[in-house]
């Protein structure tokens, strides 16, 4: 069985502030980390491999990402934690991609790795919050799709059973393989690497490929392949001020008791 886990490098913090002096946006994300939802997806893949390994089957867990060259470090860390191999799609031509262009790039990466039986990705990325990559990948790869997976219950050769969230609550769902699962963060906590894992990963190869190498259509990737564009971004304004409740803590508490009594 072959599982591909799609991961995205995201800033460790998504905090954005307005520089009060220059009135410009300051994004101080700190170091890049693996999107926490994707980390949960990787953990599910590693657990599935352990289960099937116990049953005598070898499972390949590949990690796939599109990003800047420095993302290699994060993929190496995924290998340290147990992934079999990793492919980084890194090229100027990929830059500026929206979800559609990203989907095309990842699809090309998937072909490079060999078509998987199961694709796992985070339900969404903490810096984008779109939750679109999973279902778009399923569409592009013509695979079944289950979003918001909370628990991976069982996985046979032709079908996977999961608990997944939906509008009517959590359901037990069976999907035909090959299949894309998008994983909720609470589904699992990614294991830490062992000393042996860290040391071995230092010598592992993280494949880095450009757009041409994976046969990506230049018109369908990066800025050129992105139908949507951000025309403006801004830190949301605060609205008109409410009523100030001032004084010391005791005074404030007493006023609040009165206000609560009045409004509700």
């Amino acid at each position, binding site marked *: 069985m072959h599982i591909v886990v799609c991961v995205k490098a995201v800033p460790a913090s998504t905090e*954005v502030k307005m520089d009060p002096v220059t009135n*410009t*946006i*300051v*994004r101080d994300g700190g170091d890049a980390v693996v999107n*926490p939802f994707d980390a949960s997806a990787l953990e599910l893949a590693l657990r599935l491999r352990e289960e099937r390994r116990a049953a005598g089957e070898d499972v390949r867990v590949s990690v796939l990402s599109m990003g*800047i060259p420095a993302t290699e470090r994060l993929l190496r860390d995924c290998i340290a934690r147990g992934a079999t191999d990793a492919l980084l799609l890194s090229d*100027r031509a990929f*830059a*500026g991609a929206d*979800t*559609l262009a990203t989907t095309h790039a990842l699809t090309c990466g998937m072909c490079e790795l060999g078509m998987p039986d199961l694709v796992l990705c985070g339900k969404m990325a903490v810096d984008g*919050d*779109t939750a*679109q*990559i*999973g*279902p778009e990948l*399923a*569409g592009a790869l013509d695979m*079944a799709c*289950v*979003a*918001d997976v909370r628990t991976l219950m069982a996985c046979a050769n032709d079908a996977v059973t999961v608990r997944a969230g939906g*509008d*009517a*609550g959590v*359901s*037990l*769902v*069976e999907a035909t393989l090959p299949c894309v699962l998008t994983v909720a963060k*609470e589904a699992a906590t990614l294991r830490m690497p062992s000393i042996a894992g860290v040391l071995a990963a230092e010598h592992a190869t993280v494949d880095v490929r450009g757009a041409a190498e994976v046969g990506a259509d230049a*018109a369908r990737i990066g*800025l*050129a392949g*992105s*139908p949507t*564009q*951000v*025309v*403006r*971004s*801004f*830190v*949301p304004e*605060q609205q008109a*001020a*409410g*009523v*100030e*409740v*001032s004084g010391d*803590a005791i005074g*404030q*508490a007493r006023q*609040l*008791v009165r206000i*609560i009594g009045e*409004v*509700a």
Partner: protein
Amino acid sequence: MAGLRVDETRCIGCTRCVRACATGGIEVKDRLARPTDACVFCGACIDACPVDAISIERKEAGADLVAYRDIWVFVQADEHDDVLPVAFELLGRARALAAQRGCAVVALLPQGPGSAGSHERELIARGADRVLTVHDERMVPLDAEVCARWVCDLAQRLKPEIILYGATAFGRELAPMVAVRLETGLTADCTRLEIDGATGLLQQTRPAFGGNLMATIECPARRPQMATVRPGVFAGDACPRSSVSSDAAAKDQVVEYPLDASVRSRVRVLATEPAQQGASIAQAKRLVVVGRGIGSKKQLPLMQRLADALDAELGCTRPLVEAGWLEYPHQVGQTGVSVAPELLISIGVSGAIQHLAGIGGAKTIIAINEDAQAPIFGIAHYKAVGDAIEIVDNLVRELEDAVARS
């Protein structure tokens, strides 16, 4: 060639763009900014530039945009065959946009074979000019892939200019599946929609970076333009048509459009667990919402005491769920539960947009926070700046004493 462009006549070499860039994608040499190979076209430098010297230039595909018209609204019914309110909210907004654009509003309504048939009339009454529907057993329960095939089929034939979806769990799975098949753009979880009446260009505004940043997004060269919209963002009660149309009129406005016979679901729902606690927060009349500003998990019992004293439910922000202090059903906000209580007491919550988007329905908001600059104060009706724990401590004492006295 598409790429980041710096207008040399405007650039003053101030390096604000360099500071704004998270990827080292721009540098200043000889007092002139220029992009480096690390640029990912995120647009941070454009926002940071004080002299508007930076822009992203794109190669626009010359698609035949004129062939596309009308605004479609996807209508989702729940497991009891009740239409979700977000559909009416979207119809209301679509009417306003259609008025500017001078086009029609069309509702897409997939139904099971046994559906009562009253939805069409209501949709028309609430703003739809036409209803495209299908009665098919493969639509019960709703399956995103099956539904996507139906919508794509329709869209390819009828060429809508815009398709709007409710950002429900189902809508957020369906819309990308449609987008990838139609190879068009999709904007998730919009909180604002505007239209250029002349060009039909839809300006879609949504929170990004966990709600700390708002982004306005356009899809200039592909059609249809698609967006999912958070339930509760637009008013659903606006009913622009003065009277309910007659049955006969309604009949002309409803078109049955069959689902391709080859379409098969690849996902089966085996069982559904009953919905849990979350509902109690969504429907609570009074709500205490706590955020990271309470400092420590150890303060939760105090917060619960406050909730108990007020006969309120306890909710929290996303970071607290992420830290494991409370379970997900307690999470209030865009990625959690949207709430609309009579009274909401917000404690130690800074107020990221994604959180504020989820509490917009609260009638009265009292915010308690140490940071006078916290965005939560921007929407609070009453604001207490000070040590949250100390204030709550006193508040609980006052409330409990009041109960003891009575």
